[in-house]
C-alpha cells in the first residue's frame, strides 16, 4: 500500500483504498489499486484519459461497485456502511454540475438538507461568502459561467465540511486566473488539517503546485507515486509533464506501484 505520509507523522488516513479492482466483462478498468489519503493532504490522481481515475472516484463515491477490494472513509466501508461513509464525503466534478434550473442558494439548501447539515442557513451564508458567490445567490446555476459554476460546486462540496473531498478536474475549462483562485481555495480547505483531498487533473503545473503527493495511473494500475516536486528528478526527466507523457506512452517501463 502506498502511504501519502512518508516524512511526517502519520495520522489515521481519511481515505483508505485497498486492492481495488473493477472489471467490465473482459476489460479491467481498475487493477489492484491501493492508497491512503491522510487529513490535511492533497493527493493527485494522474493519468491519461481512460486510465481509471474517474472509475476509481466513482467507486469511492459509492455509485460504482468494485469487483473486489475495499474502500473505507474514516473507517466506514463504502459498500456496507454507505450512508456513514458518504456523510463524511463530498465531491465536485466537471461532469456533474448542479441542476441549472435551481438558484445557487436553492441548490445549496437542497443538498444541505440531503447531507443533513446542522444550522444550514448559516452554513450556506458562510460558503456563499467564502466562495465569493454573493452576487449569484439568486441566479440560476445554468446561467453562470464555468468558473462560477465550479465555485458553486465547491460550495456544495463543502456544505457538510467533508473529511474527504473528491475533485475530478475541478479547473478544467476555466481561465487561468479563476483556476488559480480555485486552487487557492482548495489549498485553504486542506490547510486546516480537517479534510483530505483527492484531486484529478491534466494540468501538471497545478498538480505540482497543489498536491503533496501524486499517483500516476495507467491502464487501471498505479505506475508511480511520490512527491510531484521530486518525482521527475528521480526518473531522470525535467518536469512532471514530461514524466506524465513518458509514463502514459511507455507504462510497462515503469513497472507497477513504484512508491
Amino acid at each position, binding site marked *: 500500500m502506498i502511504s501519502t505520509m512518508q516524512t511526517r507523522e502519520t495520522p489515521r488516513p481519511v481515505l483508505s483504498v485497498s486492492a481495488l479492482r473493477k472489471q467490465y466483462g473482459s476489460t479491467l478498468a481498475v487493477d489492484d489499486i491501493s492508497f491512503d489519503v491522510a487529513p490535511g493532504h492533497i493527493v493527485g490522481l494522474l493519468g491519461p484519459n481512460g486510465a481509471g481515475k474517474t472509475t476509481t472516484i466513482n467507486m469511492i463515491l459509492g455509485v460504482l461497485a468494485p469487483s473486489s477490494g475495499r474502500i473505507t472513509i474514516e473507517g466506514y466501508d463504502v459498500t456496507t456502511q454507505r450512508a456513514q461513509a458518504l456523510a463524511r464525503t463530498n465531491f465536485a466534478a466537471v461532469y456533474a454540475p448542479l441542476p441549472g434550473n435551481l438558484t445557487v442558494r436553492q441548490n445549496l439548501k437542497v443538498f444541505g438538507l*440531503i447531507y443533513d447539515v446542522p444550522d444550514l442557513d448559516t452554513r450556506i451564508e458562510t460558503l456563499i461568502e467564502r466562495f465569493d458567490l454573493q452576487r449569484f445567490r439568486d441566479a440560476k446555476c445554468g446561467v453562470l459561467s464555468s468558473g462560477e459554476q465550479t465555485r458553486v460546486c465547491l460550495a456544495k462540496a463543502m456544505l457538510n465540511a467533508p473529511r474527504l473531498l473528491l475533485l475530478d478536474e475541478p479547473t478544467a475549462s476555466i481561465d487561468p486566473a479563476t483556476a488559480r483562485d480555485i486552487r487557492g481555495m482548495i489549498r485553504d480547505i486542506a490547510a486546516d488539517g480537517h479534510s483530505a483531498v483527492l484531486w484529478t487533473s491534466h494540468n501538471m503545473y497545478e498538480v505540482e503546485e497543489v498536491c503533496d503527493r501524486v499517483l500516476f495511473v495507467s491502464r487501471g494500475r498505479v505506475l508511480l507515486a511520490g512527491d510531484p516536486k521530486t518525482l521527475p528528478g528521480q526518473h531522470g526527466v525535467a518536469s512532471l509533464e514530461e514524466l506524465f507523457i513518458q509514463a502514459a506512452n511507455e507504462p510497462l517501463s515503469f513497472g507497477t506501484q513504484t512508491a
Partner: protein
Amino acid sequence: MSAGFNPRRVAGVILRQYYLMRSSPTRVLPTFAWVAIDIVLWGFITRYLNSVGTPGMNFVPTLLGAVLMWDFFSRVMQGVTVAFFEDVWARNFLNIFATPLSIGEYVSGLVLTSVATSIVGLAVMLLLATGVFGFSFFSYGLLLIPFLLVLFLFGIALGILACAMVLRLGPASEWLVWPIPALLSPFAGVFYPLATLPPWMQWIGHLLPPSYVFEGMRAIVAGHGFSWASLIGGLVLAIAQIVAAAWCFAAVHRKAVRSGLLARYSAESVS
C-alpha cells in the same frame, strides 16, 4: 449525520420539487390542466347522454366519477415519475446518489411530492365536476375513502415501477411511461364491468387494484350489493404491488451500481 431513515434528507428531495414548481408555471399547469380538460369533456358527454338516455338515468356518478378517479390515479403515478424525471433531465444522478441519501429516502421524497401534486389535481377536478356538472363524490358514501386509497396506492406502485424501468433502460424510455395509464384502462374496467371483457383480459384486470374500485363504484350506483372482501383484496393487492415495485427499484439501482450504468447514466450504456 445518522445512517437510519432521515426526514431531513427526504425534505431535501421534496424541497427541490417545490423550488422547481414555484419558479415554473409550465410545471404547475399540468398538475391540473389536463385533468380539468378531461372533466369538462366528459362532463358534457354525460350531460348529453343524460338528455338522450332513459329518463331518470344519471351517467354522472358512473362515467364522470370513473373519469375523475382514473385521472386521480394517473396524476398520482405521474407525480412520482415526473419528480424522478427532473433528476433525469437535469443529469443529477451523480449528485443525488453520491450522497448519504438512501433509496428509501429518495423514493419517499418522490412519493410525498406526488401526494402534494395529486391533491391539487383532485381538488381542481372535484371543483369542476361538482360545481359545473353536479357530481357528488359523496354519492359513494364512506367508500370514497378506500376507493381513493386503492387508486392512490396503485398509482404509487406503478410510478415507482416506471422509475425503475427508466433507470434500467435509460432516459429515452421515459416515452414508454406516459401511455401506461391509457394502456391499462381497458383492462381495469374503468367504464364497463370486467365481465364485458374476454377471459384473458379479465384475468389481467383482476391483477389491477383499480378494477375492484370501479366494480364497487358501479355496484353502489346501481344499488346492488357491494363486496367489501373484494375491495379489501384490491387494497392488499395494491400494498403488495408497492412493496414489489420498491424492491424492483432497489434491485435495478443495485444492478446499475454494479454495472456502471448509474455512473454513466446519460450514455445509456454499460459497455
